[in-house]
Structure formats: C-alpha cells, structure tokens
C-alpha cells in the first residue's frame, strides 16, 4: 500500500483521494465505464466496499469489488454472484438494493444503494454505555421493518445467513432500517437440500443447525438469528451471553438454555415465552416467519397501544386543526408535503415563508402544527416528505413527536430538520438514535435556513430549492 505525499497516510490502490487529508492522488478509477471510485468504506470477507459516483445518473452508490485473492476460489466467486443476483430480485425498502452487477478487469463488481447511517450494533452499544435501553416502540418498529425485509428475502428464495445488529443500518435522516451485507447469502433450495456448504455466520446469532452443520438450513435459521438480534435490541445482551466458548454456546443452544429477557429487563416478561419458542433448537418449533415473530413481540409488548391514537380519525374533542398554506392547486396531490412543528406561531410562520421561497414554483403543501398531537394528526393524513421540527414544546417534545411519527405509515420517509434554541448534546443523541443528523440552532437567519433547505433538497434528490439570488 502506498502513502499520501500530502499527509503520509495510507492510500488504497482503488481510490483517487487520500482518505485522511482529501488530497487528490490520481485520476479516478472507473468501473464499468460509469462508477468513479471515491473512497473505501470497508472490507468484508468477500471484498472491499467503496463509495463511488455513478457519473451517468449523478448519484453516489456503494460499489463492492471482490478481493483478488478470492477470484481463484470458485465457491467464493459463486457466492459473490449469488449475493448480487439474489439481491437484484428483491424490491423491499428494508433490503439494500442492487443497481448493477458485472465483470471488472479480472474481478467482479456490483453497485448498490449507498445507505448512510449507523448500524444497530453501534446504537445498542451506545445505549448500553449510557445504561439505558432503546425505547420499546422504537425497537419494535425497527424489528417489524427488518422482519418485513427478511420475509421478502425468503420469499425471493434466499437465505441471508448473517442476520445480526451489525448488518442492520439505520439510515441517517429517515430512520429507515435496512438489512445489508448479503455476502453469505445462499439460495434456499441449495440450503434446504445440503449441509456441506453451510459455513459462515456469526456464532452469537447463528442457529444451532448453522453452527454445527447438523441439519439443512431454512428460513427459520434466519429467524433464529433475527430473534437473537431482537433479544439484544431489547435487552442490550445476546441470548447466550454467558457462553465462554463455541462448544459451550452450541451446548446451551441445543439445551435451549437461553436467559429469559425478563431477567435482564423485567418489563419484558410477556415475551419470555415468545423468545423461548423463537430460540428453539428444533427449527420446526420456531415461528414460521420473521413477520410473525415481530408481530407477536409487538402484540405482547403493547405496540398496538404505543401507536399514537392521533393516527386514527379526529378524536372529536374539538382539537384545533393545523393551519395550511397551499401553494399548489388544492385539488391536486402535492409533490412535496412539508410539515412545520413549532409551538411559536411566529417562528412557524417565518419557517413557512422560508419553505415557500425554497420550493417556489413547485406544488408543495406546507402545513403548520403548533403542538405534537396536531402534527401527528396531519402526518397521518399527509405523510410528510420534510419536517421542520422544534424540540422544546409543551406537551410532547420534538423527540417524542418524531418517535411517534416514525411509527406511522410512511413515517420513515420524512427528512427531518430540527430547529431548536435549546437542544443540547443529550437531545442530539436522542434524535440521532432516530436517524436524525440535521440540526440548526435558533435564532436562524432566513438565508441560513434557505441554504439548509437547499442542501437537504439536493441530498434528498427533490427538485432543487435554489436560494434566491441577491
């Protein structure tokens, strides 16, 4: 590996910028005539993942190149192809999407959706470090959505074989959970008829049949790993944390001697039996699908109660309706729904004019809510694309509003900009857990807000919201 002339940092052969100082070191390496490699994102068992620019469609992608030393290994090559082909067949917002796949020099590449965000593993670690748990409604929403993605993977005839918190990314800005890294993926028909190729997986999450290769795999093997992930998300511990070796782990799994979740978090007592079933040594005794497991967890932990009642029809109590400013024809469906949530009507008005200026000429619907309940009611009817959210509000604060919004239908799609005079480090962390990284401090000048909206708009790929020229 060579060194950067500017800072002396190590240079990867495939990239054209120094990762340490940003210095351009050579012309961009182009893959498949359209993907310019920009920076290395990480290395896995199968290959190296780069951030690349699709120069044809002007968007960033994640581009995976198989490690050259694996090219001589036909099994690894086949596994790499299966990952790409299998993924390409899946269309689910909670499964990373493949855009292209093909040969590159003596290697293979595939370009896929670039999901920027934090892994569930790092979120759990952070909560554990703070001595707290991920809030139940948030955890259950993440699990429900990942279960949806996993069921789609299984319906497409694939097994993931490496489900774990490290392979779930919570996308920045939207909070969308996405299942990544299909490097060990295998076609279900192969997995169900053979035990000879069933290696891999992470021991702390792998099903007994995957660990000891005693039986063919099925979708219930992924379900086992999903249950371990769910257990950890709810308790900050993996189910068999006391095992000191793989042998001990295998023995505990086969004895079904997992710690009940309620021993780590008493309020989880209603799901002790659910986890006992999901972590059965016998695959046939487990839940038939990840969706069914997630649904049972939701039912028993009161997810139904946690769904905000404001998502239903008007409560009939005469709650003040949200104000709306319509810049497009009222009868037409808006191209962009913007929701401004602020208890100060004068700031909300200021923000609505900024949005009007930023999206001038587009069919944007701008709604103003002066409290969390009104905001959620409006969001239930008009799922917002963009939310400008205050933090310090009487009643529900901004974090509570956002947590409920994320639970609503289409609630994960909203880009959220937090505008607050008081949100500090702790609040930033709480918003960060919900996938939010855009903060602006009040007071904020009009041009500053417009520039922020412009940047958000470009990042989201919406119609450009140009700052009017001076």
């Amino acid at each position, binding site marked *: 590996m060579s060194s950067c002339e500017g800072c002396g940092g190590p240079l990867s052969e495939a990239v054209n910028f120094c990762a340490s100082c940003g210095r351009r070191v050579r012309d961009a390496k182009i893959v498949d005539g359209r993907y310019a490699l920009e920076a290395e994102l990480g290395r896995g068992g199968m290959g190296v993942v780069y951030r690349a620019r699709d120069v044809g469609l002007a968007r960033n992608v994640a581009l995976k190149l198989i490690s050259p030393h694996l090219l001589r290994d036909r099994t690894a090559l086949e596994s790499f192809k299966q990952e790409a082909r299998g993924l390409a067949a899946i269309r689910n917002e909670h499964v990373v999407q493949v855009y292209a796949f093909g040969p590159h020099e003596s290697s293979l590449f595939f370009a896929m959706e670039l999901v920027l965000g934090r892994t569930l593993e790092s979120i759990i670690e952070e909560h554990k470090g703070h001595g707290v748990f991920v809030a139940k409604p948030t955890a259950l929403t993440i699990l429900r959505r990942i279960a949806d993605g996993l069921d789609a993977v299984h319906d497409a005839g694939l097994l993931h074989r490496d489900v774990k918190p490290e392979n779930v990314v919570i996308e920045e800005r939207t909070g969308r959970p996405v299942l990544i890294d299909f490097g060990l993926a295998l076609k279900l028909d192969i997995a169900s008829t053979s035990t000879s190729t069933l290696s891999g997986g992470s021991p702390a999450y792998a099903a007994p049949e995957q660990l000891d290769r005693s039986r063919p795999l099925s979708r219930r093997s992924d379900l086992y790993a999903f249950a371990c992930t769910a257990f950890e998300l709810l308790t900050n511990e993996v189910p068999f944390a006391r095992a000191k070796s793989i042998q001990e782990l295998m023995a505990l799994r086969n004895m079904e001697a997992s710690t009940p979740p309620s021993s780590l978090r008493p309020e989880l007592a209603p799901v002790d039996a659910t986890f006992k079933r999901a972590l059965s040594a016998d695959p046939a005794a487990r839940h038939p699908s990840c969706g069914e497991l997630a649904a049972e967890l939701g039912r028993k932990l009161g997810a139904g109660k946690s769904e905000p009642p404001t998502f239903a029809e008007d409560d009939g109590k005469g709650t003040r309706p949200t104000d709306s400013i319509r810049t497009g024809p009222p009868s037409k469906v808006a191209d962009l729904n913007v929701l401004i949530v602020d*208890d*100060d009507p*004068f700031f909300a*008005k*200021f923000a609505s004019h900024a949005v009007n200026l930023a999206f001038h000429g587009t069919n944007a619907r701008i709604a103003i809510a002066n409290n969390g309940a009104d905001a959620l009611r409006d969001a239930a009817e008009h799922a917002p694309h963009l939310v400008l959210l205050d933090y310090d509000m009487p009643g529900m604060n901004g974090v509570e509003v956002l947590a409920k919004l994320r639970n609503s239908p289409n609630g994960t799609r909203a880009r959220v900009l937090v505008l607050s005079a008081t949100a500090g480090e702790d609040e930033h962390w709480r918003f960060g857990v919900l996938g939010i990284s855009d903060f602006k401090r009040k*007071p*904020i000048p*009009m041009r500053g807000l*417009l520039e922020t909206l412009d940047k958000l708009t470009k990042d989201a790929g919406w119609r450009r919201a140009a700052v*009017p020229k001076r």
Partner: protein
Amino acid sequence: MKDRLDRTRDMTDVNEDAPDEVDAVMATLRAEYAERLPELVTELRVALEALRNGDITEQAVRTPRVLAHRLYGTAGSYEFDRISEAASAIETQLLSCENAGKLPDDAAWQEIARALHVIEAEVAAAMETKRS
C-alpha cells in the same frame, strides 16, 4: 476563452436589477412581527410579575421561561437581535433557578429587570421607526 464565456454566462444568470425576494419577504415579515411585539412583551412582563408576586404554581413558574425562550429564538430569526439577546438573558436566569429548584433571588430579578428594560426600549424604538 472558455473560462471567460463561462463567467459571462454566470453573470447573466444573476439579474442584478431583480428585486431581492428574500429581503422583500423579510421586510414584510419583520413589519408584521414588529406589530405584535408590544403584545408579546406585555405577555412576558405580566408573567414575570405574577411569578415575582408569589404565584408559584407550576404553570406560573414555567410560563415566563417559555415566553422568553420563544422570544429569544423567534425575535433573533426576525433580525431583532438585541431583543433576542435580552430574552436569552431572561431565559438563562429563569432556567438556572428552575434547575436549582428555587425561585429567582434579588440578583436574578435585577438581571431580569435589566433585560426586560432593554427589550421594551427596543420595541419602543421599533414602533417609533415605524411611525416616522
């Protein structure tokens, strides 16, 4: 040559004679907000007086801080910077008392009165400017 052509195009993109839309919007917003400022400041003063006169219900303690907090964030965004700074000083005093679980002492009330005076003077000046 190409560089010169590009620069020419950039310059023609900006219509120097066009009215500045942002400034125009801000001027209208500022005027509207200035109209409402006396009412907002009165609301704050009344809430502060209620607290000072011994109303220590939860709402009476919270209301002046909430009003000062709003004034800080919003007046500053509307470019009434001195009002915003003074409102921030009031909020800081009230917040530190709230966090310490006590009512403002004489020193805190003096700081609050000084900041409130700045706000009222700024609002009066804004009204005067509008009249003239």
